[in-house]
């Protein structure tokens, strides 16, 4: 079985990819995918620790995270669809109405 560090490194790589994607990409849907990536990076760390420490806590939290992620994806995608209908664009840089 691979040592714990490998799992953690993979988790960190996934998380960082997600962060970079959120900051850099402009398409709202891609930004969403990146957020999912961050969540799953964190999930990986949870399950790895759970397995190595012989505790169910890690696995349990992952279920919670997945439920939240599903809800967030449903609402988020619905918002993106609505925004697209209104503005014919999913570019997050176009969405700056909150500015003065």
């Amino acid at each position, binding site marked *: 079985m691979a040592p714990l560090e490998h799992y953690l490194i993979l988790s960190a790589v996934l998380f960082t990819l997600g*962060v970079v994607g959120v*900051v850099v990409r402009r398409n709202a849907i891609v930004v969403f995918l990146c957020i999912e990536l961050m969540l799953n990076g964190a999930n990986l760390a949870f399950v790895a620790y759970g397995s190595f420490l012989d505790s169910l806590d890690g696995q349990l939290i992952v279920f919670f995270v997945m439920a939240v992620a599903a809800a967030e994806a449903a609402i988020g995608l619905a918002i993106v669809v609505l925004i697209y209908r209104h503005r014919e664009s999913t570019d997050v*840089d176009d969405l*700056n109405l*909150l*500015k*003065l």
Partner: protein
Amino acid sequence: MTYILLFPLAGVLVNLLFGFRRGERFAGRVATGAMGLAFLASAAAFLSLLGLPPGQRALRAFLFEWIPVGGLQVKASFLLDPLSSTMTLVVTGVGFLIHLYSMGYMHGDRGAVRYFIYLNLFSFSMLTLVLGDNFLVLFVGWEAVGLCSYLLIGFWHERDSAAEAGKKAFVVNRVGDFCFLIALFLIFGRFGSLDFGVVLPQAAATLGAGSGAATLICLLLFGGATGKSAQFPLHVWLPDAMEGPTPVSALIHAATMVTAGVYMVARTSALFALSPFAMGVVATVGALTLLMAGSIAVAQNDIKRVLAYSTVSQLGYMFLAAGVGAYTAAIFHLVTHAFFKALLFLGSGSVIHSLHGEQDIRRMGGLRAGLPVTSWTFTVGALAIAGIFPFAGFFSKDAILFAAMTSPRGGLVFWLAGAAGAFMTAFYMFRLVFKTFHGKCSLPIEQQARLHESPRVMLLPLQALAVLSVVGGWMGLPLVRGADLFGGFLSPVFPKMGGEHHEVVLEVAMMLVSLAIALLGIFVAYGFYVRGQGVGAAYGRRWPRLYRLLLNKYYVDEAYDRFIVQPVKRASIWAWHAFEDGLIDAAVNGAGAAVEAAGGAVRRLQTGYVKSYAVAMLAGAFAILVYLTVRGG
């Protein structure tokens, strides 16, 4: 005894709940009925008081602890003694007649229901005032009658002058009330109580005769009385108060409320007895007021204004009497004055009513034919106020003049003032009578044709009051020992003045003199206004300056305007700019501006780009991570 108070209050409530829906007739009947029942209750209370031995005639009714706060214990309780019993009989009796009269006078007025509610509320307040067993209950009544007076003066509030007059009455009264309030504080500070039953018997022991504290308290109390009873220099509101409906002038501004000051001085006579100086001030102000108001009344042309100044002048008599220690005479005159002045006001109301609002006596004349009942009742009232034997005013005015002369605190000066006042009273009253009811009618012909006597409901009170104006004085017959029922009934309430042996010869002589003075006044008026038409006007032209001085009421209003109203106005405007604009508004606007500026500075952070928020969040998370790592390491 509490029923006396209960009935008018019930009248107010019934009319508030149902009056507006059931209309004017219903409201009038309820209000008048309530007053009638209150009168019966007062009479019953009076009889039960008579059943007690003379020394112990005082009934107390305790309702509840009103203000139990530390050292201040105020009870809502009422006292019926000969003084307050006399007052309740006058208030409810005359009040009942005036309510009855109002049913005719206010017929067809849009606000009639409101009017009757105010009138009943006034009666309730006035009864609270006279029945209160401590200074605070008296003060509540005192303020409440002031409120009702304000409401009723400004009853026709769509008329500017009426609204202004109401405001003026309220403000001027406030000056007096302020003095009264300070007096109450001083009394509480000295005695630790506001009960009449505590303060008055202990007054001499606590304050000491002739002490500065007694003088101060008495002067402040009298200051309150000058406001309510329209004495110089606070008399200016009463003539303007004639803007109200005439029955109101009769009830509030002649018979009852304005006498509250006299009642209060009489009630606290135990305090005044301690301060000869304050008594002197009371007598002097009374004498001054009676001369001043009497002379003004000579030159006025508005029928109600003449009567208003006459009221001020007669109140001056009452204070003169109180000031020389003749409280019985003061209250006696209060009662008879309530009869004949209410009669005169109601009579003038009847004239105004039948002339559809005309109040200028220069445009009247010869009304005797058209208004026979009003004419003879008015003449009876005039004879009574002029002090002609055997009408009511003769006895009460004579009692005052006699006391002014013979009382240890009186003197020739006071008698002269009173006698001069009596002459003027007879003169201006008969000037009014002759100009209104006699001579040629100067009204347009078509108006003369429409002239009609007032309805019966208005004439009945006139006739009743006329009878009272004749016989009302007989309860205080002087000369014969034991015939002075009124004085005998009241005197236990007041402190003994000493020197009360009557010299019959002197008294008879003085009666004849005052009778002669009154007759002379009438005769002069007759000469001026009946026999020699225009003689009065000729005298007015001969001394134009004096005439103008009187016509303009000694310019007291103008002086107030110049020296008090205008400076206060200017100071207010200055304060408005300095404090309102400069301080309060500046602070509020400044707070707003500061928040706006801070917001303007911070809002640059809000770019509206989701990404910049994400970056900021990440940077924050990273910073926390770094901090935890460094600290943990």
